[in-house]
């Protein structure tokens, strides 16, 4: 089930909210857990059991790690926990990638397993990993109540597209969270904002992408238009989903971490990654980069650490070489910035913005591709390789049809709207109009979203590879 669907919005969510707020506190987590399993099972009935098994392993290993804390057994159980989680992720997500590459290298023809990827496995595996590692480090206590741990892992607001919520961040909220009209009001507004970002903007930009992919009249500027549009589409889609997750979390009394912070205003790639998919970046920093030694090592080891992290970041996004290339591409840029350009970019801010947008838009062409060959075609197309013309009539039509929404989306990806709101808040502190607008805008956005959903408009799900 996806948030931007009628079954979720008007069949699932209202029932869950009704039951959740009707039951006593002791039953709230079980209600959330059961509804999360139904939510997950809607799309992947058989994989519910995989998730339950993964949670149970995490639960048992968490207890054992804590029970034998300070002994070699604790480390053994940590290794077993990490291995079992990664093995499940490796099997379900990467088995065919490894088999395919092995076949290519050896000339053998081992049949592919063609396993359907369990949705959200990359997210919930990382949550369980962080939980057991944190228990091992002594940063958190092992959760004694399996329902609470399962609720944390399976919590439907953040289950299929993040943010990757750390157990340490919600440990207390699992048992002691509060509910209020303020939280419900803020949560519902945030949820609708995310829904509008996804349905009204990302999906509309997705239509441009579909048009580009079906085009028989490609041109250099059409590739750039697609790159620009895709970059904004994935931002609105992903950050919209994170907004929905954070909003839904608030409805149920949780506070999740922010996942995006206007990444396209960055003046360097390093800054971009501090603002883009923050929960993933910080996860790799805390559970891979720093354990490897971080930057407090010699230059060779530092380079090794950087490339391991970015190899894994790319690979996490999908079991294809183009994702690995995508990750390593950022590894190279970050290394160059670290050793050569950081000061220059700091001094030349306008250049920094252009440089960042240029390399990020190229990166998303690698990301959008289905494989390395396609990535080469996309990136090559941006630079006129292949003898394509500079401009085509289809490109001009796409620009005229989607030009306005591209401008809206670009402006909306900067803090302009937020700053305008802050300014209005200061000016009209007690204004009735301000209150009215703040209340009515989300309702109007929800109505517009319903129009798109009722029309059965283009509504892709981009996280099937995560």
């Amino acid at each position, binding site marked *: *089930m996806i948030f931007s*669907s*009628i*079954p979720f*919005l*008007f*069949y699932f*969510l*209202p029932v869950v909210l009704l039951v959740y707020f009707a039951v006593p506190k002791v039953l709230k987590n079980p209600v959330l857990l059961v509804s999360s399993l139904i939510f997950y099972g*809607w*799309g992947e*009935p*058989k994989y519910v059991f995989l998730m339950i098994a993964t949670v149970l392993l995490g639960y048992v290993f968490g207890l054992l790690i804590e029970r034998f804390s300070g002994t070699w057994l604790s480390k053994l159980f940590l290794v077993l926990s990490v291995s079992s989680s990664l093995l499940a992720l490796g099997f379900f997500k990467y088995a065919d990638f490894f088999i395919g590459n092995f076949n290519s290298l050896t000339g053998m023809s081992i049949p592919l397993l063609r396993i359907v990827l369990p949705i959200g496995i990359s997210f919930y595996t990382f949550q369980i990993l962080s939980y057991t590692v944190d228990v091992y480090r002594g940063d958190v206590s092992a959760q004694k109540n399996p329902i609470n741990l399962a609720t944390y892992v399976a919590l439907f607001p953040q289950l299929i597209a993040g943010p990757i919520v750390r157990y340490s961040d919600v440990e207390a909220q699992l048992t002691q969270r509060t509910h*209020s*009209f*303020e939280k*419900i*009001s*803020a949560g*519902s*507004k945030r949820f*609708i904002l995310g829904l509008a970002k996804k349905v*009204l903007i990302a999906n*509309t930009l997705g239509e441009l992408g579909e048009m580009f992919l079906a085009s*028989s*009249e490609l041109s250099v500027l059409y590739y750039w238009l697609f790159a620009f549009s895709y970059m904004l589409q994935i931002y609105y889609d992903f950050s919209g989903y994170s907004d929905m997750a954070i909003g839904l979390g608030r409805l149920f009394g949780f506070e999740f971490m922010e996942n995006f912070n206007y990444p396209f205003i960055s003046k360097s790639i390093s800054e971009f990654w501090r603002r883009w998919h923050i929960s993933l970046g910080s996860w790799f920093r805390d559970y891979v980069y720093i354990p490897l030694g971080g930057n407090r090592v010699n230059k060779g080891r530092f380079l090794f650490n950087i490339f391991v992290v970015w190899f894994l970041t790319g690979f996490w996004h999908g079991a294809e070489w183009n994702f690995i290339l995508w990750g390593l591409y950022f590894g190279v840029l970050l290394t160059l910035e670290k050793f050569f350009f950081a000061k220059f970019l700091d001094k030349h801010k306008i250049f920094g913005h252009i440089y960042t947008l240029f390399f990020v838009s190229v990166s998303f062409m690698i990301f959008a591709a289905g494989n390395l060959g396609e990535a080469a075609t996309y990136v090559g197309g941006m630079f006129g390789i292949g003898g394509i013309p500079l401009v085509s*009539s*289809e490109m001009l*039509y796409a620009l*005229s*049809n*989607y*030009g*306005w*929404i591209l401008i*809206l989306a670009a402006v909306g990806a900067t803090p302009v709207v937020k700053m305008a709101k802050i300014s209005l808040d200061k000016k009209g502190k007690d204004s009735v109009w301000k*209150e009215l607008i*703040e*209340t009515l805008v*989300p*309702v109007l956005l*929800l*109505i*517009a979203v*319903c*129009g*798109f*959903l*009722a*029309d*059965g*408009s283009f509504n892709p799900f981009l996280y099937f590879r995560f």
Partner: protein
Amino acid sequence: MKNKHLLSTTIFALVLASLTFGCWFGPRAAYSESERRPLAEEPMLTIESVLSGEFQEAFELFSVDHFPFRDHFRSIKAMFSGYALGKKDNNGLFTVEGHISKLEYPENPEMKEHAANRFRYLYETYLKDTNAKIYLSVVPDKNYFLAEKNGYLSLNYPAFIEDFKTRMEYAEYIDILPLLSLDDFYRTDSHWKQEEITDIAEFIGNAMGTDVKSEYTVNTLDVPFSGVYLGQSALPFAPDTIRYLTNETLSACKVNYFDSGKAEPGEIYNMEKAHGKDPYEMFLSGTSALIEIENPNSKTDKELVVFRDSYGSSLVPLLAAGYQKITVVDIRYLQSSFLGNFISFDNQDVLFMYSTTLLNNSMSLR
């Protein structure tokens, strides 16, 4: 402050609850009049259907089709796309010069090939060794007049038609393009208006060596005509009016429909369908595989076979004056290989009259 949060929570809850109530308990229509299509049925909930994912998939479609006030929400979407997001088309439909039209782009070489192959099959199988005189006339869709000059993607119509003239070298081409204008088409539908194409009928008749010129009485249908694009676009647009032409010749014609395999008498204008879901279907009863129109008052013994799509439905009656018998064939509903069971080709005039829309989307030709 607390009241503010209470107010916005209440409004959110009310909107959510109203739409939820509509989704769960709202009326369930079986057919969408505006989109002219059956709506998804409520799927059966079984363990097997849930485990296989069939139920979930079907329920998604069902929930969309039966969303409360769906047509109103579709209108909101269409207007939001146009006015707020600045889109020029909504689901491929666009509004310019007082018309709603649908993008016909890109050119589909495979479909063109398929159409040309089906026509060649008819020629090779039934016409090649006869004395039949074969004609071709391509009807441009109204984008010919609307798309390019308003900045929309458009077929290259001259090249498109030239391609069919080349592929169908066995047919003499009748060029009706200079006689057509945008006003000849309904504003909310893809089709042309019968009352505006009498000159085209005369021109085609002359090109085939017969005189079809007639005087007609113009009749106005007593129900508004919401064309196919009106419902699809979901835009607030005034419906069209259907006018149809009658005279003594047409009244005297005997019409037989062969949809059941045997001759069943009918009318040129089906008044039951005129008051049905698609009033344009009043012309020769809409979708019909094979129709014979006999004109007892004909001054000639000429016969005509027309291979046509829906554009032919309103034009063919206007050719009746010049022929003793017209056989109207729609190979979307009749397998070409069965045609020999119904028609003996000899020395008839044979007219292939198809729209660019169908030629570019010809998979239904059999």
